[in-house]
């Protein structure tokens, strides 16, 4: 600082400016706290799941493990076994450990969904802000194109593309990312348009700031909070989407485990009361409901403006 200033702490000074929004701390309700705990739990599983799981995801458990002491049957059934000391959550249709597959599957389902959502945001926010700032021809071309993509049901688009180019994990991530980029685009554009006409952007333009400065310093920080809320919702949609594709047999390919695929492959055990299809289904449900609980709290904190936009 070249000039001596009488105020010691510039940060507090800015917060005390009369038109600065009051700083509120994010207060979580009990359901929000529960949501945070569950999300944190699954995120931890993504990283440590494979190392704490009792078996490998592709391991078909040995018959010897299931021999009941005192029984003379040396070849017991290993598929669709109920929970026990060998397999805590039972076994699946091939006799693999459901718990291990669920732990391994977390990495696949959550990892792919997170990567797709991040990609969707990278593409959607960049183009959306570009459309909002650019206006005119850029805006109308991008928006028309985007409307067209939005008017194709996403699952249809994915089915056609997957049949065309196959289904590997990178393809799945890129495809899902691009499909969901269109809804991110719409929200980023509309938020960007709101901010663009605000007085502080006008002021920045009048005092001669460059376009890049305005976008990175004025527009992006102001759309960040609503976008963060939307990120949570979008993440849930992507998890459901990826799981549905796997459930249709078009997502993650066996023997790698992922939650949607696990439900599908074990559906035949349902009539016999096997819990193998229910465990991964409940894993999906707990994760997505938890994210929603957190999002509800955050969006209430952001003034609920997002809720209106979602309709």
């Amino acid at each position: 600082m070249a000039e001596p200033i009488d105020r010691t702490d510039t940060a507090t000074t800015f917060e005390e400016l009369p038109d600065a929004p009051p700083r509120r701390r994010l207060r979580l309700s009990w359901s929000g706290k529960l949501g945070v705990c569950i999300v944190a739990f699954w995120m931890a599983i993504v990283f440590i799941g494979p190392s704490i799981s009792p078996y490998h995801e592709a391991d078909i458990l040995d018959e010897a493990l299931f021999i009941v002491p005192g029984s003379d049957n040396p070849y017991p059934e290993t598929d669709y076994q109920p929970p026990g000391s060998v397999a805590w959550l039972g076994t699946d249709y091939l006799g693999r450990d459901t718990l291990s597959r669920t732990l391994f599957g977390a990495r696949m389902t959550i990892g792919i969904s997170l990567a797709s959502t991040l990609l969707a945001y990278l593409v959607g926010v960049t183009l959306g802000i570009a459309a909002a700032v650019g206006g005119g021809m850029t805006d109308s071309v991008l928006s028309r194109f985007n409307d067209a993509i939005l008017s194709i049901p996403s699952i249809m688009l994915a089915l056609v593309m997957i049949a065309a180019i196959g289904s590997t994990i990178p393809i799945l991530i890129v495809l899902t990312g691009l499909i969901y980029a269109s809804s991110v685009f719409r929200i980023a554009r509309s938020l960007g348009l709101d901010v663009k006409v605000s007085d502080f952007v006008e002021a920045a333009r009048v005092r001669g700031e460059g376009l890049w400065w305005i976008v990175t310093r004025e527009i992006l920080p102001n759309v960040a909070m609503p976008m963060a809320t939307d990120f949570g919702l979008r993440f849930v949609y992507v998890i459901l989407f990826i799981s549905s594709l796997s459930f249709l047999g078009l997502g993650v390919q066996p023997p790698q485990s992922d939650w949607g695929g696990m439900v599908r492959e074990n559906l035949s055990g349902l009539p016999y009361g096997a819990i193998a299809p229910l465990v991964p289904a409940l894993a999906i449900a707990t994760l997505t409901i938890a994210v929603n609980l957190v999002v509800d709290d955050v969006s209430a904190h952001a003034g609920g403006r997002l809720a209106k936009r979602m309709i």
Partner: protein
Amino acid sequence: MTLLTAMLRRTALGIMTLFIVSVLIFIGTSILPGDVANIILGQMATPDSLAALRAKLGLDEPAHIRYFIWLSDLLSGDLGVSKAGAGAGTVGTPISEMLIPRLANTLQLAGAVAVVAVPFAVTVGLLAAMYPGTKLDRAVTFTTLGLISVPEFLVATLLVLVVAVQLGWLPATAYISGQETGMKLVRALAMPALTLIIVASAQIMRMTRATVLNVMSSPYIEMAILKGVPRRRIILRHALFNTIGPIANVIALNLAYLVSGVVIVETIFAYPGLAKLMIDAVQTRDLPLVQACAMIFCATYVVLIFVADMVSILSNPRLRHPK
């Protein structure tokens, strides 16, 4: 006059969107590796026979020419013939013949869902919004949040587990031959329809509630409360008319959303509808059939959104004069 202009503008936008969609679908299906000639000939493919068949099917034309031929055929109602249908028997079958029974099945399912889900969900959503914070409201909010955040196949799986396996009331798969009437038809439709009703109702309830609450927090409602208008009268006389547009929007959106719901549901229950036909067509790379199905789904979506827009404009005169 202004109403007419607004309607014309929306119609033009809708047609424009459909045009872009048709280009996208055409490009999307054109990148499928290995063309239809390859698939039809299979092992018998020689360079000569491939070239001959491509010429016969018009596959040797450049892509943009094929697009315009396809588009003009489509507009004149000629959907073409299936080129590599599921099973060799369907090669050469006119697509419209294959589509119509499947489309009828899907419409039957969607219709049953709409007839039950829409009135039920709108009523419950309205009730929840009329009495916010009550037990009913909290129950609705919590249940619907749970339902919209789990995948459709979970709902379907649990339904099968409870209704078909535990209770044994209904069959777990839906086989429709087209001759069913009365109770048999109802039984065949019940499981897939119930799944979709649950999923769609949750969405509609949630959105209806949010929409009505949004209207209830507007200044003129506050004014009415302050001047002492009874609660019933506020809702029925002041709020209701202003929520018709948004609610119609919600309904149309959710009917459009059924399109992706049916893919999962038709697969789980082996329901012979249009979505299942499309998945089969994608697997056999039957380009004309994929294109036709995709166009039907997209056109349905665009039309429903158009209807939603129209209802909004009719119910809210301010939308007729976009600023």
